């Protein structure tokens, strides 16, 4: 069963966001890491980069293939997780904790309304895995 912690927000492309004031921490969901398989490489933007909701944030590569990661929110990157870049397998072992990817100072707090909360995402992920 895929793990979905309460209190997070999710995109349809299976990224998560943890919102604390004006700062969002972003990552990919347990469902995503399970679909992708063994992660071996991450490409993430440096602090200072401006990103937009729904646009590519970076690249994640498994043994098998490369995929885009999409940003759950718009704003400016204030921190990039160097540890997960050095140890991309954290995405598999700890997708919501050690494998946070970036912290973003959000430019539009209302964008959260475009995301799913944990409850809605749980149903969404169930439907997806039914296919």
């Amino acid at each position: 069963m895929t793990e979905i912690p309460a209190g997070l927000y999710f995109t349809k492309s299976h990224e998560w966001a943890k919102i604390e004031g004006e700062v969002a921490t972003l990552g990919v969901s347990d469902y995503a890491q399970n679909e992708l398989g063994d992660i071996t490489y991450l490409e993430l933007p440096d602090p200072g980069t401006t990103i937009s909701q729904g646009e590519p944030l970076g690249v994640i590569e498994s043994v098998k293939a490369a995929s885009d990661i999409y940003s759950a929110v718009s704003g400016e990157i204030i921190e990039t997780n160097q540890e997960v870049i050095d140890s991309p397998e954290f995405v598999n072992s700890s997708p919501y904790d050690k494998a946070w990817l970036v912290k973003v100072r959000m430019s539009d707090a209302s964008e959260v309304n475009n995301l799913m909360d944990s409850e809605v995402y749980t149903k969404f992920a169930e439907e997806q895995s039914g296919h």
Partner: protein
Amino acid sequence: MPDPKKTPLSTRHEERGGRMVDFAGWYMPVQFTGIIDEHNTVRTKAGLFDLGHMGQVDVRGKDALAFLQYVTTNDVSTLEPGQAQYSMLLLPTGCPIDDIIVYRRPDGDGFFVVVNASNAERDIAWLREQRANRHDLDINLEDVCDVTGMFAIQGPLAEEILQKITEADLSTVANFSAIETTVDQVPCMVARTGYTGEDGFEIYCPIEQAQALWDKLLEVGADEGIKPIGLGARDTLRLESKMALYGNELSEEITPLEVGLSWAVKFDKGDFIGRDALVEQKSNGIDRRLVGFKMVERGGVPRSHFDVQVDGKTVGFVTSGTSSPTLGENIGLALVDKSVAGIGKPLQIMIRGKAVGAEQIRTPFYKRSN
């Protein structure tokens, strides 16, 4: 698109949580526990592979040998009963339509040809066409894909596990040789062949027995840690061992001489389809080389068809690439201009528009110690 075809083991893969994909028109598992875990299982213990998607053709008749000499590149006349060889079916252009394994049947009665799933239909049509052109010959070609079950057990513990339920003494089976024996009382052809770089066997059985044998091998190998292995690890295992994959290292635009497979092309055996083109290529000089490389800069994993540059100039392309579980490096094979080939020499792999540094290294990337 029609629904992908199922092997006798498709249900088993679903039960085991295999991630199923459509591969070459077949419903196959790409992974079970994870590619790296499965890869390491084969390198250190034993893995079981469903090869029900692969194709098989029986070639019998008085002129079977002459026919196979003409349609394949290797020298079939050297095969003793039970011996196998790697070979190719070439077009007149000298480029392969497939790479294959040719077995001389252990009882000496004809040959058994194993072809890739993705090319099986075309190969069989091609062989029939060639057969029709040689109506003077006594040849019986039989497509036995639908009645043949095929799987592989590979890894350092493969022999120990398979021996538990095999009548014959497997230690007497040489590399690239096959015997007729029984496995769990089912008559099988068991060959010491594979596509992983490890010791191991490929097993051919009546298709209706495939599921029971599969279950039995997982059962008797449980203590040794046997696991079912998906296509993902099959690819990383063969790539580390520098075994060619049709569609990657071989295609209708690449000749065997360019990718280091001239050892499987025997010019002195007489005429064969594609021979003239290869003789010409040889005398004109072979301008491309297949080289192995590892990434020496961060920038991603090299993948099939990525451009390869040296000093800003395109010199070739990646045929296969991956994150190597055994080496812990990003590695690949590339077909490049011979002028840039050489161990230690640099290449730049174009990954998402950026030139990322790589260095040519010795292949195979992995070779087992025993």
